[in-house]
């Protein structure tokens, strides 16, 4: 059995601190944050574990 999720989420990504994250860096989109995955192919996940976030 398999579960397929298809969803809409904001684009863009939040730059890391090393990339210059701060008040004056990044676009407005970056500052608001976008979708980021928290998984790898083949990884075993459990119910409740974050697979990504905005």
């Amino acid at each position, binding site marked *: 059995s398999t579960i*397929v999720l298809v*969803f*809409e989420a*904001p684009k863009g990504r939040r730059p890391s601190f090393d990339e210059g994250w701060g008040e004056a860096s990044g676009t407005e989109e970056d500052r608001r944050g976008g979708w980021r995955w928290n998984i790898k192919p083949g990884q075993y996940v459990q119910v*409740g574990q974050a697979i990504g976030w905005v």
Partner: protein
Amino acid sequence: LRTALRDTKVVWKPIPIGLGIAFLGGFQFYRTQARHNEEEKARQQQELEDGGKAPKRQRIRPSGPWQVQIMSTLPLKAMSRIWGRFNELEIPYYLRVPGFKLYGWIFGVNFDEINEPDLHVFPNLASFFYRTLKPGARPLDPNPNALLSPADGKVIQFGTIDNGEVEQVKGVTYSLDALLGSQKPTRATPNPKPSADRSKSADQEIIRADEEFAQVNGISYTLPNLFSGPESKDTPKTATEDQSTPARASSEQEVRDSLALGDGGTPDSWWQPVSTSARPTALYYAVIYLAPGDYHRFHSPCSWVVESRRHFAGELFSVSPYLQRTLPGLFTLNERVVLLGRWRYGFFSYTPVGATNVGSIKINFDKELRTNSLTTDTAADRAAAAAAENKQPYSGFAEATYNGASALLHGQPLKRGEEMGGFQLG
């Protein structure tokens, strides 16, 4: 001839079993061929009468290597039903614990987290397979902006959807239209706009919904268009029924609060990402495979509203990673239940896909859904009959709505981590 008839001794002998079976098989083959020819003639005649618009339902014949071709000839749904019946047979009391322990050893079941410590309680493998976990065994990620894993399983693939194409493993792609259905859902409402006055009462929401026009993102919609999509002669209708059960107040409130935070899409956002000036969006997908030893109930990954359900009564191929690599468009062939709705960032869909051993998909809040059962065809046939009555092409799925579940959200609210249903054997 006369001499032969008179002088030949008549000896009666039993027909050999093999010859008898061959004769009966040949006779049966002749009957099925004759019936098939009659049906084909009747179908062609019907097509001529209807101008070629009669609904068609053909058996799925996927392309692929010889393993797939052989599998496509098997009666997979019947096999799955028999497998389910077999697993519902009661296991003798003293064989239950060793039997389940053996199963768990083979498939890697963690017995420590099962809610019922005494394995004797499970009368058969089907009930053990659909076991529950101890409270707190699956803590939810504390990040409120996180999307949670809907089930225990292996991440097969994830990524971004480009041009409406979902990439399957090894680069095989299939379209979202094939996976979710090409028509716009019966109901597509926008997320509630963030409001400065969060203490607005429920009564005010109802009154606003009764107005003739609603203002969404600066565009006016009439309510029929807003909730049902624009009426058009070209827009095919499917047989839809409200299958919802009333939602719990706690879920409803939590989901309302979550949706009110978001800046989700407009009614036109049916699987097309909506890029507003405020926040560009994209479509993402994730595929999670549940192995036989995994916990087989699935949960809501976020707070969202399920507006409609589409039941595609397809085939029941295995969904093992091997076949996912081998058979193109596997998810678009198999029986599946597509739940369509919205979350705080726009469109959201959740699709449990059945397989040969786990053909039964259960949705807790859907009172009529029956998958992999003899009544499955009845639901699909109703949709086909409705399409034929309206002189429209058969959509390929039976659709139901959850409008009655919540007066305020126009759908079934589900809070993050809430159990939605599960996969059952057979």
